[in-house]
């Protein structure tokens, strides 16, 4: 008899990192509840007011709704993951320290979702959008030894990252027209423009770009293809990112910028069309999939299609229904994802065709996930019933055609949800992980209680929401109020005679019919799925990625093949342009030759030495001689700095020169020959065309060097002959230095007056070094 809990699971109970993150989520959830009930609050810090960059967070209705989802669902999923992750690592024979690649990213993801939910500024929205994308990259690629995981992670990062760039462009266009990134301000300005005779095309395009970014994030057709691929992630990641967090971020943004979207009818109609298309495509493909998580991924595409459709319908009904829908869906979908993970852990299978009849072995899980499925398919006594009621009401108020479509959509949801649940828990028990269908059923691996408890909690929440719907309705009404900019009241109750109830009943009937007749629609749905794989947007993505790779390779090859020509291509135009500039400007009296006295003679002598060393570098063929002559150039100049009263520059120059010389020597040690081949040797060994090339180069290189060097000489001479306003800036800095509590002007400039520049520079150093490390050691830092 196996132990009730396997060893890794017991280790999990003691993993302080996992519990710290899970408790952080729980604490954040409690804090969000308190903030919501007490009316929230606002933080507004203009940290770079010249650029209109502000840290503007406001815990309003939208903030409350999505922050509660991110932390609440987060707490449930994290609790689940404390038990799941050790088992997962154990199955793959990976060390326990790999959990450090999981928990920090999960925690950061949750925090950035809370930030995203409360952000009131388009730039902030963009930054946090990208933070979630980066976190998702590491989480989806958690199983980094698997190629599919890495490709899926890259795809999610690229697709949602490029979408975020669209949002940035939209934000900048809006800023150019209106002078602010603040969403409430923009909403006010755009509504004023709308009332004054319609917004400009540029504004519509900008708003459309922001909407596109949101649609990409919410995996809407035709940008949906990244989501099913992202199912390569461990199940807790899918349950969190792809039910309540990452994909929810897209509709969150639509809800946040809805007042901007409203002013453009085209964009809003576009949302409606994309939403309906996503419902249809996601639903139809979901019905054809065999993998648990694939079914759920396509159903997520379809479900967020509902939300986008509702924003497309717009108005009070649409916005309220959308907010409510997000809540109900997140609770149910995360429970179903967690169910899929538990079933996989227990049976070792990830396909519907391999399992079945698990209702007897896993009765509690079956009951809990049945509640979740009921929520998703909008059965009464669950919170899901109201989500569809609001959906039907919004659709029917808009037009009869939409009402019909909404019933069909709900029928589709009913069918794929129960197909998933029935496939797992009903029917006959199948062979399990073994590929041979004739094999006997394998006994289930016992799973820790924590792999079931979160599902039960979420299911109970869905059930409570179906009976005591008040708090959830209030939450949705608050969010809708923040979306629309005016207060909204929502009262939900069961009305047996209402039009929406009859629409729901019709949808269940149609859904049951769909479930009962798989042969009728199966071939068509599978054909759609195949066509999507062959000609769909994921194919476009692959082709584009290939083309980008080839282009980059070609460019790299071109650059590396002939380094001298590349250098010449920079030096020659630079020199020629500078010379042309001198020809165009009056230069009479600009070039002055000063006088030399006293210690200046020493400087002149040093400069002569530097000049001689420079000539040696140009003519010598021995590598060592080149390196040492370069060192003479550098150290000679450093001494000149010291003599003309710049000790700070001199110190850094000496140090850097030493480092550079050492690096050069090290490179020379690696070089295959001790000498650069001389011209005569080259001429002797080379073939006829090579000889021609060398003959032309014999004159080309010195000529280019002379042009560039001459231009640089003239520019520096001109600059030194005419002391300009820059000196006054220097004087000002020198005067201010004591006030900054310093005596060394250079250090004070670096650390104080120009501190931000220094920070950016050292950040570049850090990024460059870790880039080198990544290339040399595949990411091992030591």
């Amino acid at each position: 008899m196996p132990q009730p809990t396997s060893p890794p699971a017991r280790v999990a109970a003691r993993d302080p990192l996992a519990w710290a993150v899970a408790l952080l989520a729980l604490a954040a959830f409690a804090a969000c509840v308190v903030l919501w009930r007490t009316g929230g609050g606002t933080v507004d810090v203009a940290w770079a007011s010249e650029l209109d960059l502000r840290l503007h967070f406001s815990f309003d209705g939208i903030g409350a709704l999505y922050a509660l989802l991110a932390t609440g669902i987060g707490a449930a999923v994290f609790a689940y993951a404390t038990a799941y992750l050790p088992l997962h690592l154990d199955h793959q024979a990976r060390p326990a320290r790999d959990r450090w690649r999981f928990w920090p990213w999960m925690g950061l993801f949750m925090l950035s979702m809370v930030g995203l939910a409360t952000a009131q500024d388009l730039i902030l929205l963009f930054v946090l959008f990208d933070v979630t994308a980066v976190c998702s990259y590491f989480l989806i690629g958690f199983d980094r030894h698997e190629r599919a995981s890495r490709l899926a992670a890259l795809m999610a990062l690229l697709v949602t990252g490029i979408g975020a760039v669209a949002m940035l462009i939209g934000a900048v266009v809006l800023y150019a027209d209106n002078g602010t990134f603040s969403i409430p301000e923009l909403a006010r300005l755009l509504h004023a423009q709308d009332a004054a005779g319609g917004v400009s095309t540029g504004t519509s395009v900008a708003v459309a770009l922001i909407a596109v970014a949101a649609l990409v994030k919410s995996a809407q057709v035709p940008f949906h293809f990244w989501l099913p691929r992202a199912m390569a992630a461990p199940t807790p990641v899918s349950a969190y990112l792809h039910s309540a967090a990452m994909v929810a971020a897209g509709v969150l943004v639509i809800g946040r910028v809805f007042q901007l979207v409203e002013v453009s009818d085209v964009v809003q109609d576009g949302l409606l069309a994309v939403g309906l298309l996503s419902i249809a495509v996601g639903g139809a493909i979901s019905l054809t999939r065999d993998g648990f998580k694939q079914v759920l991924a396509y159903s997520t595409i379809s479900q967020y299609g509902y939300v986008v459709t509702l924003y497309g319908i717009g108005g009070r009904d649409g916005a309220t229904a959308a907010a409510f829908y997000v809540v109900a869906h997140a609770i149910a979908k995360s429970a179903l994802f967690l169910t899929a993970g538990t079933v996989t852990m227990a049976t070792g299978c990830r396909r519907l065709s391999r399992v079945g009849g698990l209702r007897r072995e896993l009765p509690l899980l079956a009951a809990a996930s049945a509640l979740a499925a009921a929520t998703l398919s909008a059965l009464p006594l669950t919170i899901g019933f109201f989500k569809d009621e609001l959906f039907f009401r919004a659709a029917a108020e808009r037009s009869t055609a939409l009402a019909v479509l909404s019933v069909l959509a709900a029928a589709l949801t009913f069918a794929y949800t129960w197909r998933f649940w029935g496939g797992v828990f009903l029917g006959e028990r199948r062979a399990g992980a073994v590929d041979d269908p004739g094999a006997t059923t394998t006994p289930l691996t016992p799973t820790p209680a924590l792999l079931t408890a979160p599902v039960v909690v979420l299911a109970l929440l869905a059930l409570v929401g179906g009976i005591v719907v008040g708090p959830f309705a209030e939450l949705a009404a608050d969010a809708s109020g923040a979306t629309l900019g005016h207060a909204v009241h929502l009262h939900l109750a069961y009305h047996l005679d209402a039009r929406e109830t009859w629409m729901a009943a019709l949808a269940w009937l149609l859904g049951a019919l769909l479930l009962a007749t798989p042969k009728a629609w199966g071939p068509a749905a599978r054909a759609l799925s195949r066509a999507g794989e062959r000609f769909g947007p994921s194919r476009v993505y692959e082709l584009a990625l290939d083309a980008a790779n080839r282009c980059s390779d070609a460019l790299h090859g071109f650059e590396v093949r002939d380094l001298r020509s590349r250098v010449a291509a920079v030096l020659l135009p630079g020199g020629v342009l500078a010379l042309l500039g001198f020809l165009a400007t009056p230069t009479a009296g600009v070039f002055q030759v000063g006088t030399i006295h006293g210690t200046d003679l020493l400087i002149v002598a040093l400069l002569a030495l530097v000049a001689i060393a420079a000539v040696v570098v140009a003519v010598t063929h021995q590598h060592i001689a080149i390196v040492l002559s370069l060192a003479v150039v550098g150290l000679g100049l450093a001494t000149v700095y010291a003599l003309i009263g710049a000790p700070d520059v001199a110190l850094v120059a000496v140090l850097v020169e030493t480092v550079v010389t050492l690096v050069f020597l090290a490179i020379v040690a690696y070089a295959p020959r001790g000498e650069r081949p001389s011209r005569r040797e080259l001429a002797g060994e080379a073939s006829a065309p090579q000889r021609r090339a060398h003959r032309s180069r014999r004159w080309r290189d010195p000529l280019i060097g002379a042009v560039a060097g001459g231009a640089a000489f003239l520019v520096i001479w001109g600059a030194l002959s005419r002391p300009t306003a820059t000196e006054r800036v220097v004087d000002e800095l020198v005067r201010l230095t004591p006030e900054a509590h310093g005596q060394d002007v250079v250090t004070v400039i670096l650390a104080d007056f120009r501190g931000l520049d220094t920070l950016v520079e050292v950040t570049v150093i850090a990024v460059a070094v870790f880039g080198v490390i990544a290339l040399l050691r595949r990411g091992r830092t030591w």
Partner: protein
Amino acid sequence: MTILTEAVARLLLAPSLIVAAAILVKGYVDVGDGFAAAVVVALAVALQYLAFGARRAEEELPVLRFAPRAAIAGLVVALISGFFSVLSGRAPFTHEPAVGERPFHIGRLELMTAVSFDVGVFLLVAGALVSLIHHLAEPAEEIDEVAAR
């Protein structure tokens, strides 16, 4: 390498580090700053690598393996020193103590956020350079060995 270079390298290590510390501490009143101090440290470490070879140098100075962490810590220190003022609504790099206030003293050492920023730069550059030395010093076959493990 000869006994002479080994002896010189051993002798020079402590003085170089003292010089680096002096450059760093005196940075705000005298020539030098965190960057220069970090390069001095890197040169001192590079000398050890040259004299003893990568393996022996790292055996004798086990503290070197904290270099990547020092770099990250330095970035964090620099970020905090630069941006803590944003929390109270002032521009980034508004240093404490403000103009006209007296800095806090320990002996003759003045404690200021500008100096802590410089310390952050020092840690970052020193950590980064030492990491680079480590990675460039280790020969290719050892890398393969590490990869095989």
